[in-house]
């Protein structure tokens, strides 16, 4: 059994799986159920200023379903907690007291002035929580009021607010980043400059998940109208992984701890985030899809995989994939693969042929004998090794990409004869 315990920015938890700041972490009842199920930590649903709480709409969620599967993508137009601040603070204190080994991070979002942050931090510190997470990511509703993503999209604000927080609390400060920007490194660098102890990403993506074609309005629909919401779920994971990798290999932020978020559904999704440098991961949609009990396989699956690889701790493989993430310009243009089809495994669906013929390089010939048996043959000279056929093939290991031993040395675009800027 590997040791799954995690330590990130001074926060420890028995496993790296935290519930992200969202409806699953809105109150004591939910969070205690999560801890009973085995979650390593939570980021409590975002607290706002003292005073009248925000008001939420009905309905709040939209889903992208695909081929009979629900919630491949998910979005929401819910705001921060709509319960009174003191109620949340009391519950946070009670839960932390009852579950001292679990990570208790409190998400915060108040107006962009120093006094507001000072006041909230003073109150939050009294709960005994382990850290705070600054919600600079929420893309809907709160951003219209100058908070959430409205802050996260301006690096200077991120730096300043982070700096205020570091001034007024000794708690570790996580800065949660919005993906609704063009270069994730800019806000990450700003957080780092402001003294952030860690960044959490990604928050949700601006989205309209669907348009109801009967009422001609976006989903979710509130009295016939809809607004863009925050998109998450398995569909956003590739975007999250890319953004995490950008921060992990940026010279300025490469040592900044990262809590990875975005479409984590299975343990191997989490392992991918950790391989790209994340010290903990946060989950929301999968829990909202199935309930907290998914933690069992997240922990067990990660553990078994780590055992199979001989990894004794999270640190043993954390960041292991970062050195292999590079820029396109460094890729070897002399490296060649071509598709190889295992006829014994082929079920004759013809997908490899038709996609190559229509949309790729006309490199798979289809033929049919007199008995109607179909066969598909790769035309080696035409195959560019794009992988498309391998990806569409429904049978595992039927099509594989085989390296061509061409004896050519490593050559990237910088040195390629077709590059007019070569060597310049």
């Amino acid at each position, binding site marked *: 059994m590997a040791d799954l315990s995690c330590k990130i920015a001074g926060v420890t938890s028995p496993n790296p799986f935290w519930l992200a700041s969202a409806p699953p972490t809105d109150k004591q009842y939910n969070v205690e159920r999560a801890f009973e199920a085995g979650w390593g930590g939570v980021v409590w649903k975002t607290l706002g200023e003292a005073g009248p709480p925000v008001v939420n709409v009905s309905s709040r969620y939209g889903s992208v379903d695909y081929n009979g599967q629900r919630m491949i993508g998910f979005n929401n137009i819910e705001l921060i907690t709509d319960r009174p601040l003191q109620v949340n603070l009391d519950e946070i204190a009670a839960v932390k007291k009852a579950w001292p080994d679990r990570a208790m991070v409190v998400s915060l979002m108040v107006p962009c002035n120093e006094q507001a942050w000072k006041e909230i931090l003073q109150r939050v510190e009294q709960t005994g929580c382990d850290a705070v997470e600054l919600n600079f990511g929420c893309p809907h509703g709160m951003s219209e009021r100058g908070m959430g993503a409205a802050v996260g999209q301006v690096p200077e604000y991120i730096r300043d607010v982070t700096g205020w927080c570091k001034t007024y609390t000794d708690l570790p400060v996580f800065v949660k980043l919005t993906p609704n920007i063009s270069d994730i490194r800019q806000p990450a660098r700003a957080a780092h400059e402001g003294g952030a102890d860690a960044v959490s990403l990604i928050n949700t993506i601006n989205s309209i998940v669907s348009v109801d074609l009967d009422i001609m309005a976006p989903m979710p629909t509130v009295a016939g109208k809809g607004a863009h919401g925050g998109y998450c779920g398995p569909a956003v994971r590739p975007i999250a992984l890319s953004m995490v990798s950008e921060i992990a290999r940026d010279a300025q932020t490469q040592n900044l701890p990262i809590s990875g978020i975005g479409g984590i559904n299975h343990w191997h999704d989490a392992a991918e985030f950790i391989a790209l440098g994340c010290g903990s991961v946060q989950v929301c949609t999968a829990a909202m899809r199935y309930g907290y009990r998914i933690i069992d396989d997240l922990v067990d699956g990660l553990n078994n995989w780590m055992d199979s690889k001989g990894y004794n701790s999270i640190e043993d493989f954390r960041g292991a994939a970062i050195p292999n993430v590079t820029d396109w310009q460094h890729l070897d243009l002399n490296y060649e693969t071509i598709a190889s089809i295992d006829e014994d495994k082929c079920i004759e669906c013809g997908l490899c042929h038709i996609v190559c013929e229509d949309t790729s390089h006309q490199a798979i010939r289809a033929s049919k004998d007199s008995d*109607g048996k179909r066969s598909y043959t790769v035309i080696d000279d035409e195959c560019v090794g794009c992988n498309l056929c391998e990806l569409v093939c*429904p049978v595992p290991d039927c099509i594989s990409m085989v390296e061509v031993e061409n004896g050519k040395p490593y050559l990237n675009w910088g040195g390629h004869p077709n590059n007019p800027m070569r060597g310049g």
Partner: protein
Amino acid sequence: MSIQKSRLSVEKIDENFVDLHAPLNLLQAEQEAARCLFCHDAPCVDACPTGIDIPGFIRKISSGNLNGAATTILEENIMGGTCATVCPVEELCEQVCVKNTSEQKPVVIGQLQRFATDHLFAQAKQPFQRAPDSGKHIAVIGAGPAGLSCAHRLAMLGHQVSVFESRPKAGGLNEYGLAAYKMNDQRAAKEVEFILGIGGIEIEYEKSLGKDISLDKLRQQFDAVFIGLGHTAVNALGLDNEAADGVYNAVDYIEDIRQQDLSSLPVGRDVVVIGGGNTAIDIAVQIKKLGAENVSMVYRRGLKAMGATEYEQEIAQTNGVVIRTQGKPVAIHAADGKLSAVEFEYTQTDSNGRLVGTGENFSLPADQLFKAIGQSFDSQPLSDSEGPQIVAGRIQVDEQQRTSLNNVWAGGDCTTGADLTVEAVNDGKLAALSIHEYLK
């Protein structure tokens, strides 16, 4: 009483005759459609006698375009609704589904086809329009699958069609011959209504060829003639006592099942069915469902040689029918004109592949015997006219369903080829396209 009515309560009979497969609900259909790989040059399309674009219609189910899915089916097979439940999919489309190889389970194409066509029929929508009137008028003999398919396609192409049907209802075997548990809820009649909904088709009922009409006259009166006569004769055993009380032609009894109150039918206690085709299965299963106690189906060869598919054999077995093989009937025993037993001789296949008797006999007590040993085309109704060429007992046609007569086409069971509804529908379609070319 060995033979009696209402062996079972009306409720029990109704319960026994529900659909063999309950229709898929939307969720099941979506899940099943998602299993389809949308193959390119799909084997299932090759295996469909009517060439339905199966991956195409399933993709339309996936997208929620259910009327589009039904139209894709019906444009190749206007009886796609019936074929969805009666086609032997296990040896056609579903047999070659690539998912058999990867998952040992095909996409249930037949059930998806029913889902799509049921959806369209429920709205009583006719998805096809007629081309402008061609001024041509075609006679179709027989309102079975071949005749109605031909008539519908001709009507689509702008022609006027008169259909002559010897019986009081249209639909042919769909109405009179298919197993009731595959064709519930007046589906055959509803399908006829749908087909006629395109307009331009008139059916003259109870008009028999050779009696009320003749081929010679039809050829004179109409621009073209399509013969879709079907099987009109039943093979006999050639044994004594074949006329005894309790001996039936399976097809006649099946017709009664389809046309009469089920609780009014005479049902034996010990029933023997002779034959190995789907008709034998249909009668054996249905007489069991009507309450017969012991039903034995006896076939002279082995299981593999049976005309009934393995899947049909399973239906019989799971319904409590005992399938006995290697037995050929040698005597029908009767007492006071009433059937009492059927005697069989054991058979084996000799070194030359011929079926020979072993000289050893067995006897099954029986109060009802159903003969299901095949039907044939009876050319007698054509004898008053110049007839088309007949080869091996069936009307000879070419690949366009043309007979040896210049303005006469034929299709369905009266011509060569597999005796399947779907084949008959295809024959009718091909004939209509050929007639259309001829009349241009």
